[in-house]
């Protein structure tokens, strides 16, 4: 693709918009009555969005035939980690103010926090092994196996949101539907490939 590097730069900047928006809202006092809740929810939302975007790239490449799409997947994944990290820091710092005892109790006792915490922990090795050097060091097969964790992470992320909501599950349901579609696509493709292989 001719303008790939420009496109990638533009997408990089666009991916920073949710962060810049929060900083701007904080700066201009537009975070509402409960700023910490607003920041936490916004960062959580964008983590989910970037996780789902990451998982959309492969199906989109297959369906469209645009092979250059795959070169955006790492960036999308790293932005998912970026927003997850900020979400996590917001919880530890602004929400709990480093009260390790309470954080520990939360992680142990609250299923929605347990699962969110687990998802974040699983994201760390994926972010650390995202470099070309790490892919080489691990070897493609092992790297691929490790990075399949992203499916589990996305499921945990959606459940984290689902279990937090008091009653109105509309929003988590939207994320769950998109994720289910993306995972179902992979299952279908895999089955088709197995059938083809059997025929050969």
């Amino acid at each position, binding site marked *: 693709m001719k303008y790939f590097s420009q496109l990638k730069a533009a997408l990089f900047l666009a991916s920073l918009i949710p*962060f*810049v928006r*929060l*900083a*701007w*809202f*904080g*700066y*201009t*006092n*537009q*975070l*509402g*009555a*409960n*700023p*910490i*809740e607003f*920041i936490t929810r916004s960062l959580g939302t964008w983590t989910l969005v970037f996780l789902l975007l990451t998982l959309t790239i492969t199906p989109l490449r297959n369906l469209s035939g645009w092979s250059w799409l795959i070169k955006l997947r790492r960036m999308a994944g790293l932005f998912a980690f970026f927003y997850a990290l900020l979400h996590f820091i917001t919880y530890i710092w*602004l929400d*709990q*103010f480093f009260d390790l005892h*309470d954080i520990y*109790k*939360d992680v142990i*006792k*609250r*299923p*929605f926090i347990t699962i969110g915490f687990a998802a974040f922990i699983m994201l760390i090795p994926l972010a650390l092994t995202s470099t070309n050097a790490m892919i080489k060091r691990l070897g493609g097969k092992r790297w691929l196996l490790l990075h399949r964790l992203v499916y589990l992470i996305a499921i945990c992320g959606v459940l984290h949101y689902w*279990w*937090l909501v*008091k*009653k*109105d599950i*509309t929003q988590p349901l939207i994320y769950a539907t998109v994720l289910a579609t993306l995972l179902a696509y992979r299952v279908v493709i895999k089955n088709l490939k197995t059938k083809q292989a059997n025929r050969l």
Partner: protein
Amino acid sequence: MLIKKPDDIKASEITDKQVYLSRRDFMSATTLSLGALAAGMAAPGLILGSREAEASTAIKLNDLRKSALSTSEGLTPYKDVTSYNNFYEFSTDKYEPAKLAGTLNPRPWTITVEGEVKHQKTYDIDALLKLAPLEERIYRLRCVEGWSMVVPWVGFSLSELIKQVEPNSNAKFVEFISLHDPKQMPGQRSGVLDWPYVEGLRIDEAMHPLAILAVGLYGEVLPNQNGAPVRLIAPWKYGFKNAKSIVKIRFVSKPSPSSWMKANANEYGYFANVNPTVDHPRWSQARERRIGEFSKRETLMFNGYAEQVAQLYSGMDLKKFF
């Protein structure tokens, strides 16, 4: 029944609304430093003017009596009290009711009192406003979600109305039924809760002097998003007990489940007393974030009203009757 009253506060000790409005600049400074740190946006000292100093256009309620039951704690800014509302009749998003509640028409409005009472009657809202002298009641409000406010409500003790309608000996519970009109309350088109919103109190709870019918806040008529024109406030209970936009008050011998009990009986009980030792099944109730404050504070038993209300529940297992 001995009802201990907190120390009286002088009017001069209640901090001025405008002073409280400026407390939030602290929060904006915090987020600013976070943003500046990470994004390299080094521009301290340029905090834009607070948008909270907007003039209110609401109707003033005059000649309010001070109450010995008021707290002297700092008030939550008017802007926050009127823009951060759980009012599922409009939206499940707390910032939306303030934008959407314009469709609610609090005049004309009637409140029907029925059931096990001597005098079943329908009050016009303007007659209800004159039922008893209006008082300012500055109460803590603790939401089941873990945040709290201090709100200067305007209203009168619910007991004043109860005495007037004379419940009979079958009247053991009081139900509060909110308006059910999807035209005025578009959120009711969704089945997120079983409409109309129903809440209830045991009759002795309802007679407690702390329980009020609120018709205003900050010396003004209740804004729509806060449950205009009349709502319940029982400050020792979680916020959801306080039915908004009440059209019916029914005296009954047996309690019927509240809207939230019907939605999830494991998570929301009939009493819903603020209790830091009984967690919501999915989150802790030990601490709360006071709106406008950075650090969480300890949640107090019965939201700090234990001295006044604990005797209502003596001998009861509050873990069972949550």
